[in-house]
């Protein structure tokens, strides 16, 4: 059995020892080493020492139900749904937390187990305020499916009829409803261990235990970065993203409004999952048809502004390098990417003094909003006040980003609504459309052409790869020295990846870069971002030039707005789909995009990082700090 691919390192994890997986040295399957005999439901098998009963059972396709266990997270053993009977053990054992070290005999569905499991699920339901019909997780709820699969026919231990807690709707991105929480602590482990943001934790004890923020403050008042990873891992509907679908429908139904939508690359590779397709099936062109039929006036591609981002961010980097190497100015290097709004809020909170390192370029979503309400409106002769700009994003933090007060450089709110993949899938379903079987259609122009370089923004390392392709070619006049433009060193799923690219000869204007080795780094998940920031604080990153950070594990395709469930395998499948689609595109380098050339000729006449670019496409950051101020406390409705 392979070692589990977790997006964070267990050795350096700050999680308390009790929350870390038992670390037994496991030997690879088939290799010589300590194995142990285990009999599961009369099937005999040999597994490496330290394998848990759950893993062993999975390897022979014996299904043990789980709730608190999640592939991305360390083990907790709190829900007890996965109990099994181990011979000679007095009590039932949680199979997820039972490493096999001696030969044992396990029964996974004996009468005792069945009864115990049903009782546990009924106890979980006892405190779950189930309003299934109106719940965002209806039909995709792990608790609901467990209750169905394991024969819960009545509420033996009672059932709460009235909500006990006030809902927390304060955040622009994430809504919390503690009434539906079953205390599995997946969100806690996600927030503390996977993302190292530390917003949620279990407080009080015994029957009064609840998941709370610091001092029970509303989510908007604490240091939440809105990444939404907790939403992706919540087994019930206790956490969900703020849904602007009704407002979007209202805009579509208003004939006076010109409603446009931009679609990001990651949702297109994942939305099929909501319609029963296997992970990693791209439905870009079918989605275009669906959006047109829904009533969007124009369907555009965020990839266009992703290319624009590369032009702006790449130029910014080159100008910084010139300032440092030629003009000997003191400028904060390495430069960090600024595409991920979760990451931007993370650094604003935790490393506000390092904000100078972050590229001032806006994220593709915001650039798009600014371009639509200026260039596009002017070209088409539409009053920007009548344009409603909607975005389809894989991300819950984008909802916060478009609400930022500084994002109104076009004179209007740049992006009006940010929809997540799940919400748009719901809207398509509402229209009765069968997405996978719709006819294919193309994007509208001028904002509908993106290159392959922009498409791979969706995966971790993608922004870096796109930037390398463009920057290297601008500097040397040659293509990057990789087979089929695949910049393989920055691809992959490891938490932190590095690459070095020597510039052997440079064009005349970039002569100062000759002989310089461009050193870059890629990190995904804010736990890895924290490691990189700590390295920066210790001064270990002095030789580096450009660092890409995405707040979510796997990059945007593992974002907080993507279809649920998520796992390392699902994210890998989505990444494969994106890389595959990318190689079939006519343009694969941002600077080759004909419409990018057009916009710099027609509109942003001063070129990348010119005055107009600075006004529309660049932004400022707010040093927020991590100290949580005194603000009102969310109150509990009724005491437990």
């Amino acid at each position, binding site marked *: 059995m392979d070692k589990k691919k977790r997006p964070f390192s267990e050795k350096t994890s*700050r999680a*308390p020892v009790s929350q870390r997986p038992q670390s037994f040295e496991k030997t690879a399957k088939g290799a010589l080493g300590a194995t142990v005999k285990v009999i599961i439901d009369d099937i005999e098998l040999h597994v490496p020492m330290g394998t848990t009963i759950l893993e062993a059972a999975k390897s022979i396709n014996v299904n043990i139900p789980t709730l608190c266990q999640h592939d991305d997270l360390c083990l907790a053993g709190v829900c007890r749904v996965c109990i099994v009977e181990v011979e000679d053990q007095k009590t039932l054992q949680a199979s997820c937390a039972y490493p096999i070290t001696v030969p044992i005999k396990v029964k996974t569905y004996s009468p005792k187990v069945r009864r115990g499991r049903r009782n546990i699920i009924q106890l979980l339901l006892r405190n779950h305020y189930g309003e299934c019909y109106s719940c965002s997780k209806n039909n995709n709820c792990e608790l609901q499916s467990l209750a169905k699969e394991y024969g819960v026919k009545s509420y033996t231990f009672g059932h709460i009829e009235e909500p006990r807690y006030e809902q927390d709707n304060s955040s622009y991105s994430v809504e919390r409803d503690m009434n539906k929480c079953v205390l599995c602590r997946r969100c806690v482990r996600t927030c*503390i261990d996977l993302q190292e*943001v*530390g*917003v*949620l*934790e*279990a*407080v*009080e*004890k*015994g029957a009064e235990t609840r998941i*709370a*923020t*610091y*001092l029970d403050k509303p989510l908007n008042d*604490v240091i939440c970065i809105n990444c939404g990873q907790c939403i992706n891992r919540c087994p019930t509907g206790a956490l969900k993203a703020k849904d602007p679908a009704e407002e979007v429908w209202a805009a579509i139904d208003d004939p006076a409004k010109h409603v446009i939508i931009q679609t990001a690359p990651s949702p297109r590779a994942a939305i099929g999952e909501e319609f029963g397709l296997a992970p990693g099936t791209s439905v870009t062109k079918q989605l275009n048809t669906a959006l047109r039929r829904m009533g969007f006036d124009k369907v555009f591609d965020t990839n266009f502004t992703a290319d624009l981002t590369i032009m702006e961010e790449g130029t910014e980097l080159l100008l910084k390098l010139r300032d440092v190497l030629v003009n000997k100015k003191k400028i904060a290097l390495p430069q960090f990417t600024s595409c991920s709004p979760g990451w931007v809020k993370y650094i604003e909170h935790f490393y506000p003094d390092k904000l100078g390192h972050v590229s001032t370029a806006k994220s593709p979503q915001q650039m798009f909003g600014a371009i639509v309400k200026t260039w596009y409106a002017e070209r088409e002769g539409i009053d920007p006040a009548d344009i409603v700009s909607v975005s389809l994003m894989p991300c819950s933090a984008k909802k916060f980003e478009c609400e930022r007060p500084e994002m109104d450089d076009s004179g209007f709110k740049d992006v009006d609504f940010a929809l997540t993949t799940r919400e748009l899938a719901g809207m398509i379903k509402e229209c009765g459309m069968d997405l996978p079987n719709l006819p294919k259609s193309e994007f509208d122009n001028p904002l509908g052409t993106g290159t392959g370089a922009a498409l791979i923004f969706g995966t971790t390392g993608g922004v870096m790869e796109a930037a390398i392709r463009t920057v290297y070619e601008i500097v040397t006049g040659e293509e990057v020295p990789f087979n089929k433009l695949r910049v393989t060193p920055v691809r992959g799923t490891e938490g932190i990846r590095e690459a070095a690219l020597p510039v052997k000869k440079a064009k005349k204007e970039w002569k100062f870069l000759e002989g310089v080795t461009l050193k870059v780094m890629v990190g995904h998940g804010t736990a890895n971002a924290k490691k990189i920031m700590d390295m920066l604080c210790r001064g270990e990153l002095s030789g580096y030039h450009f660092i890409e950070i995405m707040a979510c594990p796997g990059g945007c395709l593992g974002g907080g707005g993507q279809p649920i469930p998520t796992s390392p395998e699902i994210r890998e499948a989505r990444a494969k789909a994106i890389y595959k689609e990318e190689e079939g595109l006519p343009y694969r380098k941002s600077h080759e995009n004909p419409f990018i050339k057009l916009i710099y000729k027609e509109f942003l006449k001063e070129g990348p990082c010119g005055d107009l670019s600075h006004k529309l496409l660049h932004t400022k950051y707010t040093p927020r700090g*991590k*100290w*949580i101020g*005194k603000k009102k406390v969310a109150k509990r409705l009724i005491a437990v």
Partner: protein
Amino acid sequence: MAKYCAVGKRADKDSKEYNICDESRSELLPILEKIQDKRGYISDKDMQQIADRLGIHPVEVYSVVTFYSFLNSEKAGKHTIRVSNCISSVMKGSKRIVREFEKELGINIGETTRDKKITLKEISCIGMCDLAPAVMVDSQLVGRVTTQKVKDIVKELKR
């Protein structure tokens, strides 16, 4: 940064148990206990300072403070009455004792009297099941509490 270390060192220079400077999360409880002893409660500011010093999140400190009955996250009265609510005390009538205290003090369980003198709390088992119902007044244990004893305790504390 080293503020809380200094508090400990000043309190007792010779004692080894105060030399807790490795800044790991295992230091958390000793520090909390010390601040609780010193101030009677652990304030918002304390929790964030401690979290910063130990490199953990404020919410984790809050979680620990709310978990332990003897740590307060809010200002408590000068004296604290803790009524055991473990099963043997409940069977011996601790609920009645709670009601009696509430009546005598004019407050509900979990509250503090208006003059900030007495806080009334419930607590899980304090190891006095043989002398149930049991009450803990500050750090003193009182067993086999009766209505009369409740009146005496309140009278004593109010003095």
